[in-house]
């Protein structure tokens, strides 16, 4: 068993694939991170990301998969789900080891796993499109904090950019500490230092005048449309798991 350690980027992953075929390293275990941290226990091969090699592998993938298939592979990796690197790698190997396009070979465990990962990521993306709750700030910017299970912020650009074109907005992933900001023209990723901003006085002063009014109206509305005689808590929690509640205006 060879253990490979790479930097976590998609190019790094593809470089690793190149090395595996070039040096006939199999079976392998693929890990993310600093190679020194695991060197104590076993012999590891550090992978140095190499754009040229990654490019060759990507070209090969494009030949064997549809454009949508490559996209799905990219998304599955970008979501940064812990412990899935070996499955993503298994999928890529299956792609190269087969003569035909294997995107729909759901009987294969790697293809099936990738489709499961993709389902999880898409569900999380969809949840974020639903559960983002903007709060209007003094300067007219609409701000929302999120804590998604997976790294889905980049997948949200298209939806929010095509919907809220006439207001400035920001969606901030406080778990991964980066956000998406739209300035009426374009979106960009940003990182913020919250220490100064998050003092209670500053937070309250930051909201626009009518923000509280609309939050209250929304909470009122949410309570009014419930039909008590149909109460079904299990179903309710299945649709909105508790971990999302702290960012939902109507559930705070």
């Amino acid at each position, binding site marked *: 068993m060879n253990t490979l350690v790479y930097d976590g980027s998609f190019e790094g992953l593809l470089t690793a694939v190149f090395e595996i075929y070039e040096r006939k390293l199999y079976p392998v275990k693929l890990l993310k991170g600093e190679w020194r941290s695991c060197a104590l226990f076993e012999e590891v091969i550090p992978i140095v990301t190499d754009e040229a090699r990654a490019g060759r592998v990507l070209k090969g993938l494009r030949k064997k998969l549809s454009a949508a298939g490559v996209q799905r592979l990219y998304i599955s990796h970008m979501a940064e789900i812990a412990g899935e690197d070996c499955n993503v790698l298994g999928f890529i190997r299956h792609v190269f080891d087969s003569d035909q396009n294997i995107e729909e070979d759901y*009987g*294969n*465990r790697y293809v099936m796993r990738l489709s499961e990962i993709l389902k999880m990521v898409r569900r999380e993306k969809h949840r974020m499109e*639903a559960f983002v709750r903007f709060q209007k700030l003094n300067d007219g910017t609409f701000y929302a904090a999120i804590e998604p299970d997976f790294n889905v912020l980049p997948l949200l650009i298209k939806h929010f950019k*095509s919907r809220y074109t006439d207001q400035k907005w920001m969606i901030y992933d406080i778990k991964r500490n980066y956000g998406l900001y739209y300035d009426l023209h374009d979106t960009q990723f940003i990182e913020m230092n919250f220490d100064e901003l998050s003092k209670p006085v500053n937070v309250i002063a930051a909201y626009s005048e009518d923000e509280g009014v609309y939050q209250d109206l929304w909470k*009122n509305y949410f309570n009014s449309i419930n*039909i008590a005689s149909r109460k*079904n808590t299990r179903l309710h929690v299945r*649709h909105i798991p508790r971990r999302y509640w702290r960012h*939902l205006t109507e559930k705070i």
Partner: protein
Amino acid sequence: MNVGRITEKLNILADAAKYDVSCASSGSNRKNKDKGLGNASNGICHSYTEDGRCVSLLKILLTNHCIFDCAYCVSRKNNDIKRAAFTVQEVVDLTINFYRRNYIEGLFLSSGIFKNADYTMERLVHVAKKLRTEHNFNGYIHLKSIPGVSAELMQEAGLYADRLSVNLEMPTEAGLKLLAPDKNRQDMIDPMHFLSREIIRNTEEKKLFKNAPMFAPAGQSTQVIVGATPESDQQVLQSANYFYRNFNLKRVYYSGYVPVLADRRLPALNTAVPLVRENRLYQADWLMRFYGFHVNEIVNNQNPLLDLDIDPKLSWAIRNMQAFPVDINKADLQLILRVPGIGLLSAQKIVAARKFAGLGWEQLKKIGVAINRARYFITCKSNEFERRDLTGQNIKQFIMAQSQSKYIKNTQTQLNLF
């Protein structure tokens, strides 16, 4: 803005609108134009109430004043409740401000009938028009059409709304006569006819002229209340089927009657909401629309009621054991769709995956098939399959014995006498 008054109105008029179960915000394709606000495409449920229903639209009545006296409706003329009415501008402001905060996909506006049908509808259309033309709002708008409304107003409504709906209320004309003596079924059917013709005409026009104006791009839907009158499931589903076929409906919603009023024509106030029946009706509806079942296969003169213990597909399967077992690795998609425990997506995955290699039990399980139900009806790449010659009744008992129904608390077990 008088916050206290708006809050009170919102509470009254949201409360009165909540018995309309339609919540879809999908099926439209309205783009954000000229850097305006919003768009409407696939539909998103932004929240869920404690009863587990989705909240995707700001669903309110313009007013709950009403000249009609329908027995099943909280807003009926003779019911002693608080009345309120929004102004057009109030609805517009609420919609825009909720939408900007990503609370909703858009507006679902209905109304009690004041003065007459046209007068009421005019106000509803006015709200939609204002949102679209003055605020460049491109989010989803669902307008309820008032029974008996004129064709001109329907035409105008279709230009601004994504979806229009006329509620049939009762599955049959007799039920309607009994509970809503002021309403006339023909008044509901006429606007539906008009809409279905206009929608078809508009689709044709769109093919020729790309810039033809949109007309109700998300189509029309309707709602029937079940459990208020004694109609059988067969009558309910056959009437749904009739409307799907003849009026190009996108959806028929089934609303389990919630007893809100004491009336000798209605079930008593402490009657439970028929949640299981409602669920089975939706399952049957899906079978008709996505699984290729004909309504008569699901309910017919021998089986006028849906089985409450098991889902309608399983129910059909155990009545038609001659159709099984189905070979997962060979059968047509249409046949696989008929196997209990296999859904639409699983069936499509199976058909795609078997081109690469035959599928066994483990793989079927991974793909998402509910093996505990499907195992009695299929064979796959494995020597293990159900060899016993089981009757439909046996299978039903086996499946029920090992499954935990989510409705178990609602069923009453019979006392054991011995």
